[in-house]
């Protein structure tokens, strides 16, 4: 009876909670690439302008955050060997974000920080709060501690702070509530989001999933603790330097710290790769591992940006733009493209087959999506990414346009493959 009592707490999060997030993310990615194609001009100018703000927020919230929220509602209970505290909070979080994101993006796109942007901002903040509460209580109720879940939880706190600051920035346009203009806080907002939310979270989850998918016995909690400590101290130091500015050279300390953390994380993935049992690594994992390596690019760019800032006291706009592009369309997009087809087919498989599994042979979960389309996605995506990034650096509209078309095509194929999984009908048994 004791055994069955602990067993009943292990329960998969319902697909009904998880799937809407995936669908929303797929549509957001498509929307973002359409925006990208129609506003390539914007990428030859300053980064603080309507279309770029709009695209960035579709990418960070609609694409990156939504899919992470979806996946982690499923994954966190597995990590802490417990169940999700509340499905209602999960739905709440989805609905609030689903309404808030378009409002916010609409506000940015017409550059009106009136009620749509403000309401949108509030919805997003509340969506993240619901998620934070849900994760916090789920973790508190579990007896199992997991370093990966600690990553997720801390990342969510950073995300919450990011959205609060973002909301204040939106209000700051119409009513001065911050000591300085909104643009001033952009670096803080962006890095709390990029480092605190995305980097911490993706590392926390990937450090569990990558070894698992490689079927590797490798595990190194001590190394992960170091990475966790380095990223958080770097970010706290960055916040301190932001609030109490000193020499710009000091910025190198957090950057180098993050660089070391990324280096350690790459080492972690390398060890997992070396000790893998599965000899043939599938395409989805290859793309995810490529994404891990892509992490080095923005750090290098950032170092160059700071060097420019110090030596010529000037912001290199195209470098900053490509820095953002590489992070959102490069690293984050690559890992999502790979991981979607490592998680979604299995969630849908569970939905369709778990009740009928006893009846007979069931199809292989990985056959729910089309692997040729996936290969096409990977190739077209990488080409589009390289073309567009080069376009930003060189300021060539032709490259930007071609790159944007490739990325749009990526999004179309991605949506197609995702829909194929969604529409999967059980085979006759």
């Amino acid at each position, binding site marked *: *009876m004791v*055994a*069955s009592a602990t*067993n*009943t*707490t*292990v*329960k*998969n999060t319902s697909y009904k909670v998880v799937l809407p997030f995936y669908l929303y993310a797929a549509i957001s990615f498509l929307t973002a690439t359409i925006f990208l194609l129609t506003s390539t001009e914007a990428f030859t100018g300053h980064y603080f302008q309507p279309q770029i703000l709009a695209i960035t927020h579709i990418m960070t919230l609609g694409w990156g955050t939504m899919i992470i929220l979806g996946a982690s509602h499923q994954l966190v209970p*597995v*990590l802490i*060997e417990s169940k999700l505290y509340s499905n209602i909070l999960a739905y709440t979080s989805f609905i609030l974000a689903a309404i808030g994101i378009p409002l916010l993006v609409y506000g940015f796109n017409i550059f009106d920080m009136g009620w749509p942007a403000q309401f949108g901002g509030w919805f997003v903040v509340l969506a993240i709060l619901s998620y934070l509460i849900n994760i916090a209580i789920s973790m508190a109720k579990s007896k*199992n501690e997991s370093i990966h879940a600690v990553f997720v939880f801390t990342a969510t706190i950073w995300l919450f702070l990011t959205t609060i600051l973002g909301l204040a920035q939106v209000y700051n346009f119409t009513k001065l509530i911050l000591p300085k203009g909104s643009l001033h806080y952009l670096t803080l907002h962006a890095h709390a989001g990029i480092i605190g939310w995305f980097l911490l979270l993706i590392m926390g989850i990937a450090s*569990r999933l990558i*070894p*698992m*998918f490689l*079927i590797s*016995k490798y595990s190194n909690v001590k190394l992960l603790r170091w990475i966790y400590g380095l990223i958080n101290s770097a970010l706290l130091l960055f916040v301190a330097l932001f609030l109490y500015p000193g020499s710009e050279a000091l910025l190198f300390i957090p950057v180098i710290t993050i660089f070391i953390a990324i280096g350690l994380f790459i080492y972690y993935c390398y060890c997992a790769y070396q000790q893998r*049992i*599965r000899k*043939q690594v599938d395409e989805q994992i290859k793309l995810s591992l490529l994404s891990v390596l892509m992490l080095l690019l923005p750090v290098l760019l950032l170092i160059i940006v700071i060097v420019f800032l110090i030596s010529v006291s000037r912001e290199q706009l195209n470098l900053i733009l490509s820095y953002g592009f590489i992070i959102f369309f490069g690293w984050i997009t690559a890992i999502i493209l790979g991981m979607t087809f490592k998680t979604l087919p*299995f969630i849908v*498989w*569970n939905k369709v087959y*778990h*009740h009928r*599994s*006893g*009846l*007979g*042979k*069931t199809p*292989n*979960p*990985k056959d729910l999506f089309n692997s040729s389309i996936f290969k096409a996605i990977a190739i077209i995506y990488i080409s589009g990414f390289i073309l567009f990034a080069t376009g930003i650096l060189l300021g060539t509209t032709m490259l930007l346009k071609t790159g944007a078309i490739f990325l749009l095509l990526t999004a179309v194929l991605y949506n197609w493959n995702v829909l194929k999984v969604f529409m999967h009908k059980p085979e006759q*048994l």
Partner: protein
Amino acid sequence: MKTINANTKIATLLKESPDALEAVISISPKFNKLRNPLLRKLMAARTSINMASKVGGCTANDFFKKLEPLGFTIDKNIIADDSTEQKQVPEFVQNITVADIVELDVRAEIESGKDPLNLIMKAVKQLQPGQVLKLINSFEPVPLILLLEKQGFESYSETVNDNLVHTFFHKSQATPIKEADTSKAGEGWDEMLQRFTDKMETVDVRQLEMPLPMLTILDALEKLPDEKALYVIHKRIPVFLLPELTERKFDYRIKEVADGEVYLLIFRT
């Protein structure tokens, strides 16, 4: 507590309450068989209260009387699926000639705690057209009757005395022998479980932390002899394991009994 009725499986009772086993056994000495873990596994999942009451020579109400104090809620409105109603002596039994009877006595097998199912299925497969299998047993093998009826067998049970029941099985001519069943994709859990009854290795990964369940299973499969199957007790359907199995040329059947209780049968294709 769970609501039960005449169609509730014995396995459900046993899972819901640890005291249900003793309660059921106290109804009729015939249910002593349930103490044998193998028979319990075998019978309980296939036998409903109604079927069991026939075997035990009692009524569903006798069950309800014993089970109610354990906290079960009884729903007497549900009428039992009565597919095993004693029929008239069917034609095939009336027309039997002694030469056509294949006798199989499984009493000793059951006494020694072994599952006779493989033995029975072997005999059934070897039946020539027109032949009748006469199964000699200590109780009416209701689950077996249902199982074989699904495969197109007619049956007839004749209770000789309290400890001796003869059951006749006969394949009606119209339905072809389902020989193809063993290779067909649609082969279900029950059939595969039968096929590997004596040839299973068991591994319980419920207490292991991720990703150890997968590694343990893959490890066990590496050492698994060719003709054997691996029986896995798991907390959830290990979806990420499934592609790995296909890659390693294994096939699988899954039985999800409840949240937190999943069984897998993994065998070579």
